C-alpha cells in the first residue's frame, strides 16, 4: 500500500481548487536472484561478498520514487507536510480557527448573512491509497472497500474535521445575526469556542466508525531545526542499534549482555558491603530491621549502555571529530539517513506492512552548500541501496521532500530522468495552488528527442523557473545579456523575482507545456527570422512587406499552429501574412519583431538598431564593435544611414554578436548620463504584459 494522492480542502492556505498533491510509489527491491544462488549448499562466499549482493537491475532509483514539493516561499509547501502530520499525529485539541481557510470562512459568513445555513465550517483531507499490492492486509481499510476499489486498486479515505455540535453552532449564529453583532471576527470567535471532532468518511461521505488513520499511516517529519541538539544523531543511531540487537540476537550483543550481567552481580556485592549495610543500620534504629531492609542493586542495562555511555565519533581523514563539532550539513544528511535506517530496521523482516510509511524531509538544503545539495539525492540513493544490501529487508518508506533549492530539484530531475511527482506550489490571491508536473503532460506536444532535450537542458539555471514569479525565455545571446539591465529599471519587475532563461536556436517551444503548468506569466522573446533568398542576403535587401513571406523560426511556427493562423500547406504554418504583433497562449506571451521605421527587422540586433538608430550609446557601441563597417555606413554622423542599412548591420554583426552585446551592456552601465536606448517595441510590450500580470496578481 502507498499514498497515491492527497486533496486538501479548506485547510490553511488551501481552498477548494488546485489542491491535489500526487505522491510517488515506494518500491521494493527484488532480491530473487541473490536468494536463489545462496540456496546452493556451500556457496557461502557468495553471500559474504558485498559487491556481489546487488546487481545493477536490483538497485532502487530513489530519485524516481521520491515526491518533491517545490515552490516559492509562502506557496503552501510546508502546509502539505503539516496536513499529513496533523492527520496522523495531531490531536483535535490542536485544531483551531486558524487552520480553516479564510476565504472559505468568508464565504460561509456571507451565506449566513443571506440566511442560508446549509454548511458549517470544516476542513477535509481526501487520501487516495493504492491497494493493488495483493499482499497487504485489508483489516485496516475494509470499511473503504468496494468491488470497484479492488478492480482499480485504490480507495479513498476522507478525514473531516467538523463541528461536534452543528445545530448549537447554527442556532448561536442565528442569535448573533438577530442581535446584529455577526461578522467574520464573531464567526472566528465562535469557532474557537466550539468543539471540533474528526470523522472518517468513505467515498460516498458515509461515516466509518472504528477507524483510526494512525493504524494505517506512520509519518516521520525531519526538518532542519530538529538537528539542533548536540547528540541528536547519537540518539537516532542508538535506536537503530537497539532494534538490531533485539531482533537479530547477534553473538556480540549477547556477549555484551553477559558482560553487563556479570558487572551487575559484581557491583551488587560491592554495594552490599559498602553501602547497603550502613543504610540498614540507620534504618534499623528506627524500625526493626528484621521486618524491613534496604538493598542496593546495580541496574545497568543494554539500553542504558547505548543511551548514555557510548560515544559517536566521526572519523574524517583519520581524525576523530566529536559529534558536536561536526558540520551541520553532514549532521543533517546523516539524520535523514539514520531515520531511513531506523525505519528499515524497525519493520519486521520481509513484512508487507499493513501500514503506509511516510518520511517527510523538510528543506534538506539548510546548512548544505550547493554542491552537496546537487548530490543530495544521489547520496541518499547510495545510502539506501547499501542499507538494503546489508539487511534482509526489501521495503523502503515513501519519501517526500519539500525544497526551494534549485539544486535539489535539478538533481531529482537528472537522477530520475523524469519530471514526474514534482508538486509545484504557488500562491494566488492568498490561496495556495498546487500542480503536479507529469512527463506525459510536458511531452504531449513534442517529440521524444525534444523531451530528452528538456531533461538534459534542465540545469541549475533552468530549474529556477519553478521558483520564479515570472519567466522570460530568450533565444539570443544579446537579449540574455541586455534584458536584466532593463528589468532592473522597471519599477514593478524589479520587485519580483523574474528569471531570464537562455534557450538558443528557437527551442523555447519545447518548454511550452511545462511553462503552462507552472502558470506564472511567461514572456518568450523570439525572432521573426524571415526567409530570404541568397541574392537578397548578398545585397542586404531590407524587408518592407511581409505579405507572402515565410519564417524559418520553429518557435514561431509552433505558436502559429497553436493559434491556428497562417496555415499554408497541410502541415505548414510558416506564412507571415496576417500576423498580429504578438501571440498569446494561456500564460505565455510570444514576442517577435514588428515593423520599425518602415522595415521588418529579423533579429533583436536589427530591431535594436532600427529603434535607436540615432542614439549615442548605440552608435558608440556599433563603432567600437565594427569600426570599419560603422564608418562605411554612418560616415559623418549620418545616423539615418543606420536605418537603411539595418540588415547589412545584422549580417555584419553576425560574427561578432557576443562582442556587440558585451560592448552594449558596458556602455549602458557606464554612460548613465546619456539617453538610454529604447528596447524595441515588441520587447517593451512583452515586458509591459509581464508587469501587468504581476501587478494584478498582487
Amino acid at each position, binding site marked *: 500500500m502507498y499514498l497515491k494522492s492527497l486533496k486538501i480542502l479548506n485547510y490553511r492556505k488551501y481552498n477548494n481548487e488546485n489542491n491535489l498533491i500526487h505522491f510517488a510509489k515506494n518500491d521494493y527491491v527484488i532480491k530473487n536472484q541473490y536468494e536463489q544462488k545462496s540456496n546452493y549448499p556451500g556457496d557461502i562466499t557468495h553471500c559474504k561478498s558485498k559487491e556481489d549482493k546487488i546487481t545493477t537491475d536490483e538497485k532502487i532509483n530513489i530519485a524516481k520514487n521520491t515526491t518533491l514539493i517545490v515552490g516559492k516561499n509562502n506557496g503552501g509547501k510546508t502546509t502539505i507536510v503539516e496536513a499529513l502530520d496533523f492527520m496522523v499525529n495531531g490531536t483535535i485539541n490542536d485544531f483551531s480557527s486558524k487552520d480553516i481557510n479564510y476565504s472559505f470562512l468568508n464565504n460561509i459568513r456571507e451565506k449566513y448573512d443571506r440566511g442560508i445555513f446549509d454548511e*458549517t465550517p470544516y476542513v477535509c483531507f481526501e487520501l487516495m491509497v493504492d*491497494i493493488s499490492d*495483493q*499482499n*497487504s*492486509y*485489508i*483489516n485496516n481499510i*475494509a*470499511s*473503504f*472497500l*468496494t*468491488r*470497484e476499489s*479492488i*478492480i482499480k486498486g485504490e480507495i479513498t479515505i476522507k478525514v473531516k474535521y*467538523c*463541528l*461536534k*455540535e*452543528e*445545530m*448549537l453552532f*447554527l*442556532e*448561536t449564529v442565528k442569535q448573533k445575526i438577530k442581535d446584529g453583532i455577526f461578522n467574520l471576527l464573531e464567526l472566528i470567535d465562535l469557532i474557537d469556542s466550539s468543539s471540533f*471532532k474528526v*470523522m472518517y468518511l*468513505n467515498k*460516498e461521505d*458515509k461515516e466509518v466508525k472504528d477507524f483510526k488513520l494512525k493504524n494505517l499511516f506512520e509519518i516521520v517529519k525531519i526538518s532542519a531545526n530538529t538537528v539542533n541538539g548536540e547528540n541528536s544523531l547519537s540518539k537516532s543511531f542508538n535506536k537503530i542499534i537497539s532494534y538490531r540487537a533485539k531482533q537479530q540476537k547477534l553473538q556480540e550483543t549477547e556477549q555484551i549482555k553477559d558482560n553487563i550481567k556479570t558487572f551487575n552481580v559484581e557491583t551488587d556485592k560491592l554495594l552490599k558491603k559498602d553501602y547497603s549495610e550502613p543504610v540498614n543500620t540507620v534504618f534499623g534504629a528506627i524500625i526493626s530491621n528484621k521486618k524491613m531492609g534496604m538493598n542496593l542493586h546495580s541496574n545497568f542495562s543494554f539500553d542504558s549502555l547505548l543511551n548514555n555511555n557510548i560515544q559517536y565519533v566521526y572519523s574524517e581523514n583519520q581524525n576523530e571529530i566529536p559529534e558536536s563539532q561536526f558540520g551541520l550539513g553532514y549532521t543533517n544528511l546523516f539524520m535523514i539517513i539514520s531515520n531511513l535506517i531506523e525505519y528499515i530496521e524497525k519493520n519486521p523482516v520481509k513484512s508487507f506492512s499493513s501500514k503506509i510509511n511516510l518520511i517527510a524531509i523538510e528543506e534538506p538544503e539548510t546548512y548544505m552548500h550547493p554542491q552537496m545539495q546537487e548530490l543530495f539525492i544521489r547520496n541518499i540513493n547510495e545510502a539506501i541501496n547499501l542499507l538494503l544490501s546489508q539487511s534482509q529487508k526489501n521495503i523502503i518508506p515513501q519519501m517526500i521532500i519539500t525544497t526551494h533549492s534549485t539544486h535539489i530539484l535539478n538533481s531529482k530531475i537528472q537522477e530520475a530522468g523524469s519530471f514526474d511527482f514534482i508538486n509545484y506550489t504557488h500562491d494566488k490571491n492568498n490561496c495556495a495552488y498546487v500542480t503536479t508536473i507529469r512527463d506525459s503532460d510536458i511531452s504531449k506536444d513534442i517529440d521524444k528527442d525534444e523531451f530528452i532535450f528538456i531533461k538534459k537542458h534542465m540545469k541549475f539555471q533552468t530549474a529556477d523557473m519553478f521558483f520564479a514569479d515570472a519567466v522570460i525565455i530568450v533565444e539570443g545571446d544579446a537579449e540574455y545579456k541586455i534584458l536584466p539591465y532593463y528589468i532592473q529599471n522597471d519599477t514593478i519587475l524589479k520587485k519580483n523575482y523574474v528569471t531570464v532563461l537562455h534557450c538558443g536556436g528557437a527551442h523555447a517551444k519545447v518548454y511550452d507545456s511545462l511553462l503552462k503548468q507552472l502558470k506564472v506569466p511567461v514572456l518568450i522573446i523570439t525572432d521573426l527570422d524571415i526567409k530570404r533568398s541568397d541574392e537578397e542576403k548578398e545585397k542586404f535587401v531590407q524587408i518592407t512587406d511581409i505579405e507572402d513571406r515565410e519564417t524559418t523560426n520553429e518557435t514561431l511556427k509552433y505558436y502559429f499552429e497553436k493559434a491556428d493562423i497562417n496555415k499554408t500547406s497541410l502541415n505548414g504554418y510558416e506564412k507571415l501574412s496576417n500576423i498580429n504583433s504578438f501571440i498569446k497562449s494561456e500564460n505565455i506571451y510570444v514576442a517577435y519583431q514588428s515593423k520599425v521605421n518602415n522595415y521588418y527587422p529579423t533579429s533583436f540586433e536589427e530591431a535594436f538598431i532600427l529603434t535607436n538608430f540615432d542614439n549615442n550609446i548605440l552608435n558608440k557601441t556599433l563603432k567600437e564593435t565594427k569600426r570599419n563597417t560603422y564608418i562605411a555606413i554612418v560616415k559623418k554622423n549620418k545616423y539615418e544611414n543606420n536605418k537603411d542599412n539595418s540588415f547589412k548591420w545584422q549580417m555584419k554583426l553576425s560574427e561578432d554578436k557576443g562582442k556587440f552585446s558585451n560592448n552594449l551592456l558596458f556602455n549602458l552601465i557606464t554612460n548613465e548620463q546619456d539617453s538610454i536606448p529604447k528596447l524595441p517595441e515588441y520587447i517593451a510590450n512583452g515586458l509591459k504584459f509581464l508587469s501587468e500580470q504581476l501587478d494584478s496578481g498582487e
Partner: protein
Amino acid sequence: MFEKINLEALKEEEDILKELFNCINEHKCFIHDAGAGAGKTYNLVESIKHIIYNEQKLMEYNNQKILCITYTNVAASEIKNRLGNTSTVLVSTIHECLWSIIEKFNEELVPYHKLKLQNEIEKYDNIISDSKYREISQIDNETIIANEEIFWEYYKSNSTEFNEVFEKIYGIPLSRKTTKCKEYVSNILKKNKYSKVLDSIGNKELGFTKVFYDARRNVDNLATMRISHDTLLEYSSKFIEDSEFIKRIFVDSFPYIFVDEYQDTNALVVKLLNELKNYALSVNKEIVIGFFGDSAQNIYDDGVGKIDKNQFFKNSKVIAKNINRRSASEIIKIANKVRNDEIIQKSIYQDSEGGEVRFYNGNLDEVDEFLTVCKEELKISKNNPLHCFMLLNNEIANYSGFGNMYNLICQTPYYKVRYDQRATELLSKDITKLGQFPLFLYKLIKLIVLSNNEQEFITSYIPRQIYEEITFEELTLFFNSSNFDEFYNFKQIIDSLKILSAKYSVWRRLLQEILDVNEIYDSIFEDLIEEKLRVDKDNIDNFMTSLNFDELRKWYTFIEDKQNEDVIYHTFHSTKGLEFDNVVIVMGDSFGRIKKNFIKDFFIRYDDFDYDDENLIQARNLIYVAITRAIQNLRIFYIDDIRDIDKNITEIFGSVEPISKSSKYFKKV
C-alpha cells in the same frame, strides 16, 4: 400552490411549539398529538434544538443525552440527518437503545430467561399430558432421550420405515400411531432440551451465564441463550421494573426522552417509560418524557395506539396540532371526514387548493386499464411516479413483478395454512418482521446483488467478523467467483453455492453467517426448505427450479424500497410516514381472507361510529394512513359492489364515478 403561508395558521403553529418548549422548560411530560402531515417530526426536531441551545454545555459536562426513540431505522436516519452532527442526542430504535445499556448487565437477564424456559417446559408438559397420548406415554422417557439421534434421523421417513425401527426400540406397537408418536417424542425431546439448559444455567456453565440479543435474528434461540426483538423487550421491561439501579442509569443518562410515532410503540415501552418517570419522581430527579404521534395512525397489532392516561402519565399535558403542512386542502377535507374525531386539520398555506380526490367504482379486472388512464391523466413518469397502494398481497406481488415467486412460497405447506402471516413475513419492508425462510432469501439475494455492485462498500454485505480476518487475495477470489448473471432459477444458485462453499472459505463463512449455522453440509439448503416451509422432500428440487432468480431480485428491490419504475406498488402498511404527489388506492370490501368485509363494515357503520370496535378502528386507521400519504392527487378505486355503502362513501368522498366515465378506454362498460 403551497407558496403563501397563512399567517394565522403560522402563529398557531408557533404557539404549539411554545407550549412544547414550556413543557420542556418546566420538566413536564407531554403527549403531542398531531395528525398526518402536521409536521410532527419538525416539532420533534425543534424541541431537540431547543434543549441543545439551552442545555448542551451542562449536559455535556454531566455526560447526559437526549434520547429519541424511533420505530424504524429509516425514521432514525431521517431525524439524524435533520439534526446534523451532534453528540448530545441518541437517536435509535427502542431495541438498540435498550440493548446498548442492558448489554453491560446481561447476566441480570438470566433469571427472566429461566422463567421463560420454565414456562415453555410447562407448555410441553401440558401437551404431553393430553389424553390422546395415553398409550404412547407408556414409553420410558429415558429410552426416548437415549435414542434422540436415531429419532431425528428417521423423523422425516415414512411410517412403515419409522415403525419398523421404533417398535423395537420403544417396545410398543406403533401402527396407526406414527404421527402421534412423532409429536409426543419430539415434545419430550424439546422439553428435555430446555431442562438441560436450565441445568446448565444452574451450574453456571460457560455460555450459560449471560443472555444475548441478536439484532439480525427474528426468532429466539432459547437453548443457546440468544433472544430476538420481542423477547428483549419482554425481559428488559421486567428487569427495569424490578431493578432500581437500571432505572437510575436510564434516568441519569437521559433527562429527556422523546418517542416518535408513539402509537406504534409496544405497550411495554409505555409501561417501562412510566416506571422511569415514577422512579425519577420518587428520587426528586427531573425527567421529561414526550410522546409524538397520532393514535389514528396506529395500524400495527402490537402498537399501543392511545396512551391510557388513567393508567400511565396521568399528569402529562396533551398538546394537539391541527395544522397540515403536507396536502392540498381537498385531501385534508376528506382525511378529516375519515378520522371523524376531535382533530380537524387545516392547511398552513393560503393557496392550498388545487388538489384532486376522486372515487371510482369498478372491478378487479379493470385495475390495469384504470392505472393506464391514471398514468396518462396525471402525466406519470419515472420522475413523477404513481404510487399505488393495494390491499391484495398477491396483486402487489404480481404488479411488482414477482407474482410467481410469491404464490409459490404461499403454496408451500407452511404458508398455505398461515395466510394471516403472509403479508408481514413475505412483504414487510421492515426486515425484522420477515419470516425465517424469506429472511434467508433476503440475506442471500442481498449478498448476490450488492457484491455485484461495484460502488457498494463491502461492509454493507460482508459481516464484520468476516472482513476483519479476510485477506486481499481472498476478497479478490470472492469477487471473481461471485457471478450469478447467467442463472435464472434458485436451484442453479444453490448448486453454484454448494460448489463455491466447498472451494472457498469466504463463501463458506458467508453462508454460515446467512444461515446462522456452524457448518455447511451438502444438503443444508434442501433441509432448510423442508424445515422452514415444510416442503416435501420429493418436491424440493421442483420448488427450487420454479423459483425464478429475476423475480427474487425484483422481490429484493421491493423489500428494499428501491424500485425505479413509473408505478410503484405498496402495501397499505409499508407507506407509513411517507408522502407522495400521486396516490392511487385500490381497495375492496375485505382485507385478505381473515378480515372479511373489513373495509365494507367501516363504510357501513361510518355514521354510528362505535369506538370500542377494534376492527372498525383498525379499518379507519388504515384508510386514514393511506389517503393522507397524498400531497396533490388521490384516486381511490373500489373493486367491489358499493350499493350497500354508497351513501356513506358519497358523504365522505363527495361522489362516486363509474369507471366508464374516467376515460375513453372504458367504452365497453
